[in-house]
């Protein structure tokens, strides 16, 4: 449906080709979250892998910082329509986390859990093979608390609500269980290139 009188402002072609449908480019780094930014004491920070309720392995901040580190740079896409290009992150890949734990993924799905009790589901296949990491640096610095520091999940090929802020662990689940937003009408998978914003998209 053509909107009377709307001409729009198209991004230049190289930008347009990097923008998923319905997204616009921002140079800012907007902040989206449910509530206040939690205060996290690094001395008490833990990152824990669980299978259901059972803890498998847990790391302190110092232990986690000693794991192999990987850099990733690229574009991120928020379901609220903004995209940001050329963001630079550093952290520990999901593959390296499993290797350090000495395990293979026990199930095909998991829920990322945040210190703010946020949860979001991600298939293991979307984290393995270098696709996802737990990031602890943004643009070469500690991640600011408003952007999920000290550590956040990074799954950049999915809408950014999947990249849980203030992540405290990954809980493997037998089936694909909906997290916080997925229970409230947002898409279970969230591929920006297929514009999977909401249930049924």
């Amino acid at each position, binding site marked *: 449906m053509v909107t009377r009188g709307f001409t*729009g402002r198209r991004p230049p072609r190289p930008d347009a080709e990097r923008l998923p449908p319905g997204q616009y480019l921002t140079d800012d780094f907007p902040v989206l979250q449910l509530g206040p930014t939690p205060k996290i004491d690094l001395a008490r920070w833990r990152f824990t892998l669980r299978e259901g309720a059972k803890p498998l392995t847990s790391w302190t901040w110092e232990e986690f910082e000693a794991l192999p580190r990987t850099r990733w740079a690229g574009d991120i896409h928020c379901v609220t329509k903004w995209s940001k290009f050329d963001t630079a992150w550093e952290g520990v890949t999901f593959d390296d986390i499993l290797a350090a734990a000495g395990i293979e993924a026990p199930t095909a799905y998991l829920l990322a859990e945040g210190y703010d009790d946020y949860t979001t589901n991600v298939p293991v296949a979307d984290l393995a093979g270098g696709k996802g990491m737990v990031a602890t640096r943004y643009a070469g610095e500690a991640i600011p608390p408003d952007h999920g520091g000290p550590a956040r999940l990074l799954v950049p090929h999915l809408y950014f609500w999947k990249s849980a802020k203030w992540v405290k662990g990954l809980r493997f689940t037998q089936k694909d269980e909906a997290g916080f937003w997925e229970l409230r009408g947002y898409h279970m998978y969230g591929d920006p290139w297929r514009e999977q914003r909401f249930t049924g998209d």
Partner: protein
Amino acid sequence: MALTWQEARITAAAPETPRVRRLTLAVGWSRPFRAGQHVDVRLTAPDGYQAQRSYSIASSPSRPEAIDLLIERLDDGEVSGFFADVAEPGDAIELRGPIGGAFVWDPPQGGPLLLVGGGSGVVPLLSILRHRAEAAPAVPALLLYSARTQEEVIAREELIRRDAEEPGFRLMLTLTRVPGGRRLDAGRIGEALAALGQPAHTFVCGANPFVSAVSDLLVEAGLPPQTIRTERFGG
């Protein structure tokens, strides 16, 4: 249940403040909307180019068939500029919703309710306080609203009238860009909490720096973080 795009006709348009325009849209919902939720709108150019944005609903869920959006004109705003300068009653746009299940208030949740808005961040709070006045007037509520100047206060006359007429509602207005103006600080938050009592639910909406600063102040004032919901506009 899928959220499908619908054609929504603009039935009225009027200036709300010098920078904010009120647009009323005729909408048919597949499910009721809740106070605090937003809609996505989509505009299409003749060559097929599209732009989407999200806007909070300002009106009450008790009038679901005609929603008010209060759209602030942003500098270089691709979509807000269209709504400010081009859109007129009789035009149709595409819209889908309602969207959002965290920044919402339903009467059974009760109160006291602390609503904190900065600038156009007051919009979803208006829906909540309008709904409260109709559906749960006994729930105590306080709106702490920070605006730049008197003329930029959205729904100013209505808020002043509600403050005077509704026993359970209190307006605390803070102006930042007037002589003697002040930002929302710990003192002002303390005054609001003293007037309202401990809120059961707090909703904070505005631009990023405003919401970060206010939610930190609220936590420092002793409010449990899980009782505070935030919504942020823009970058």
